[in-house]
């Protein structure tokens, strides 16, 4: 998805001379094309993420649209206050690009796991969040948001699994329904849509019809879409490669509570700090309950509780 994102960015930069790319010395094999085509609009600022955000703020005030690129943890947490007091406070079009979502970085360990980035960005009223589900949606999102005048956080996964059901659709503030069903709703954050769809396949084997929706943006958030979907099912499960608090599960819980919906909500997410446990992404997803089988099991448990 990173490569698709940068390909779209190159295309955008060809059309829009305001686009500048800054990297905190990361992006090997991904950013070279941009750097070669637009050497005057590419800056490797070194391993200095706070300064990268400050520089981007100064550039944006002068009319540029800077994309700042790093691993999601380093792009969001080290310069968090510079994001808040910079692009957010000044309402400037800085694009924070965080690559590697959730447990994508596998054996690199917890310092590289972006598990609170959505929470951190979602609490900021002016920060649009875009978490594409697959490469096609990433490309669509870059195009659809090119004229947004405030800041955007792009949460870009390392995976490149396509989600054909999505067809590359992206509309800020909307959830995309990938599959309909009236027994339970599975709501996934970005690339976790693949897990949700596969879980729905497993549930269908047990005769349970699951609706699957993917949320790929917040601020604006798909409040109306989620409220509408959850109003017609007895149970819902959120699936996200993120800590359990502050991300998609919390957003859906807020919608349920604020709309007074009668739906049992289960949140599949990472519930403990994933440290002292090296492993591949697949191993870690399994350990933290984020596989189709484990999501389907949670759905069955939830429905059993609902029937009791």
């Amino acid at each position, binding site marked *: 998805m990173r490569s698709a994102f940068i390909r779209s960015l190159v295309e955008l930069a060809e059309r829009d001379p305001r686009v500048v790319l800054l990297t905190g010395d990361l992006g090997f094999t991904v950013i070279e094309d941009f750097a070669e085509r637009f050497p005057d609009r590419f800056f490797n600022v070194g391993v200095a993420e706070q*300064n990268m955000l*400050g520089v981007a*703020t100064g550039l944006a005030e002068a009319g540029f649209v800077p994309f700042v690129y790093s691993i999601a943890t380093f792009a969001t947490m080290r310069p968090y206050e510079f994001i808040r007091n910079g692009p957010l406070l000044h309402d400037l079009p800085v694009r924070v690009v965080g690559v590697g979502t959730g447990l994508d970085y596998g054996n690199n360990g917890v310092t590289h796991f972006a598990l609170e980035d959505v929470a951190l960005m979602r609490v900021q009223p002016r920060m649009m969040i875009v978490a594409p589900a697959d490469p096609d949606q990433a490309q669509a999102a870059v195009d659809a948001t090119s004229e947004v005048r405030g800041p955007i956080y792009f949460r870009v996964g390392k995976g490149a699994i396509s989600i054909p059901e999505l067809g590359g659709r992206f509309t800020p503030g909307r959830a995309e329904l990938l599959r309909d069903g009236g027994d339970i709703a599975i709501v996934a954050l970005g690339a976790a849509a693949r897990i949700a769809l596969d879980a729905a396949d497993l549930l269908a084997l047990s005769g349970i019809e699951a609706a699957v929706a993917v949320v790929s943006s917040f601020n604006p958030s798909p409040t109306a879409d989620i409220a509408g979907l959850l109003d017609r099912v007895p149970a819902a499960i959120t699936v996200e490669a993120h800590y359990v608090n502050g991300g998609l599960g919390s957003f859906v819980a807020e919608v349920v509570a604020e709309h007074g919906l009668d739906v049992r909500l289960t949140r599949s997410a990472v519930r403990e700090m994933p440290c002292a446990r090296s492993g591949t992404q697949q191993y870690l997803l399994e350990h933290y309950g984020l596989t189709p089988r484990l999501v389907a099991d949670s759905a069955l448990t939830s429905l059993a509780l609902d029937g009791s």
Partner: protein
Amino acid sequence: MSEAATQMLATKIRRTILTQSKRANVGHIGSCLSIADILAVLYGGVLRLSSPDDGDRDRLILSKGHAALALYGALNAIGIVEDDLLETFCTDGSPLGTHPENVVPGIDFSTGSLGHGLSIGCGAALAARMQNSNRRTYVVVSDAECNEGALWEAVMFAAHHRLSSLTAIVDLNGQQALGYTRDVLDLSPLENKWRAFGWDVHNADGHDHVALESALSELDHEDAPHVVIAATTFGKGVSFMENQLSWHYWPMTDEQFSTAIAELETREA
């Protein structure tokens, strides 16, 4: 602007600092007074400001945002911040708080968290170069702000990219919130640090308008960013505040205010 004119400007800034901080009953008076002369020289002719909305105006970033009242005073003295707006300082609903926000006319960037402004200044200077503009960027930092690691990220960036339109002015008043800088986290030799990082370093008495103006006016020819290390006196202009740590936070009593204004008027006369 002549030295007499910038001195008048400095006095107006100091008067604003004293009267508004007294009316609002707020502190940071000493930090404001220490940059009154620096701002007077900047706004008295160094900065090229045809209008606050001109994209090619010089940029000024008050990275030591807690001295915003001094900046409001300067902007008021040159007619950008109206008297009516200035009088709202620290009242409910006013855009004029003790730290500056860019919604105020003439304020380019909101600040208040130390260590942030110089990196914004790097972006502003880089943008000017990319746009082939000859506008310049000035960043006023406090000495204690040099405690912040992020400031040195910006220092490295500016030198690497030879941002010669960027000038940092360090308000070297030797004090920070809880003590003297030499006791809290010694900065010396500060001049050598900036020079070692590749900057064009100038020293000036931060209250000598001729020295400041000459340091700030002869910077365009070097192939490096510039720093003017301005030796200042915390609380300058009000004798009982000078070099007194307590004036970092305390507001004035009525009696202290009368004494301070009387001193200002004596100096003026």
